[in-house]
């Protein structure tokens, strides 16, 4: 890890009780949901991380209930200092709420709507909490690991007739 980044991570650890995991030289800083907005603001204002280059989430289902199921991930880039850091907010399965980062980075607006759409994680205080990609009437959140994979049975020659009976054809 970069020595300049080490100092920044140390401040995050001291101020917010963040924990650090390193993977192939990349810093993953784990922050609690209640501290994420302060941490993002600190990085943006004091350390020139002006760019929220990616924001996404991961579902670690299935695993034991003691560990948080989702991680919300903020990938920050500092063009001025040539640094990159990843903030991760673990979210527990029972309370899927993270404060919105739209006040810090305007780019988070659509990213958060996408995470809401795909993972069902709620962002408190979001200015426009509508679905962004999926049809409004879709049930469930498709990027969750427990979302059913298939939507219709594929028809092959051996089961064509059998499935054709159930297939929803248009009535003109």
């Amino acid at each position, binding site marked *: 890890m970069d020595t300049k980044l080490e100092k920044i991570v140390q401040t995050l650890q001291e101020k917010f009780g963040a924990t650090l995991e390193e993977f192939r030289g990349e810093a993953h800083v784990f922050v609690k949901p209640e501290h994420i907005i302060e941490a993002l603001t600190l990085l943006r204002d004091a350390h020139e991380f002006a760019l929220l280059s990616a924001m996404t989430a991961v579902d670690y289902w299935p695993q034991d209930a003691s560990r948080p199921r989702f991680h919300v991930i903020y990938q920050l880039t500092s063009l001025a200092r040539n640094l990159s850091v990843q903030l991760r907010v673990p979210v527990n399965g029972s309370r899927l709420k993270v404060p919105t980062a739209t006040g810090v980075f305007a780019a988070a607006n659509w990213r958060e709507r996408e995470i809401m759409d795909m993972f069902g994680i709620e962002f408190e205080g979001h200015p426009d909490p509508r679905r962004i*990609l*999926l*049809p409004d009437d*879709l049930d469930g959140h*498709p990027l969750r690991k427990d*979302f059913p*994979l*298939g*939507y*219709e049975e*594929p*028809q092959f020659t051996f089961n064509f007739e059998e499935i054709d009976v159930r*297939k*929803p*054809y*248009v009535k*003109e």
Partner: protein
Amino acid sequence: MGVEQKLGNMGVVTTTLETAVNWARTNAMWPMLFGLACCAIEMMAAQAASYDMSRFGMELMRPSPRQSDLMIVAGRVSRKMAPVLRRLYDQMPEPKWVIAMGDCASCGGVFNNYAIVQGVDEVVPVDVYVAGCPPRPEALIHGVLTLSEKVKGERFKDAAKA
């Protein structure tokens, strides 16, 4: 050549109204510009100089459903796109036909998931299915000619029943 020989010296040709109407329909069948994915690139190639679909009276891609006779569904239809597709189909004037171009439009292709409609025949009635991923322009032209054969066989009394 052609029609002059049949005319003879009388300047008259006899045919049935059905044949004349179907001949007119097949030779000026204007498709709607409706590219949804990679199949649209092959559809463009079929329109362009090398393959030149205008040889079959399909030289005009209409950007408006109200001026088109044929909907070539070129590509996968997402579930969010499906209501739009149906709406465009409803806006086309009768008579109208649909070609499902490619595997995705015909049956969902490789995308069996929450996002893609498993064949546009769930949304609009399809006349011709063109297989391929994506089909080459020759395949699309073959599909169009198959449709032409189908239209030439249409009878007014059948249309009245439907």
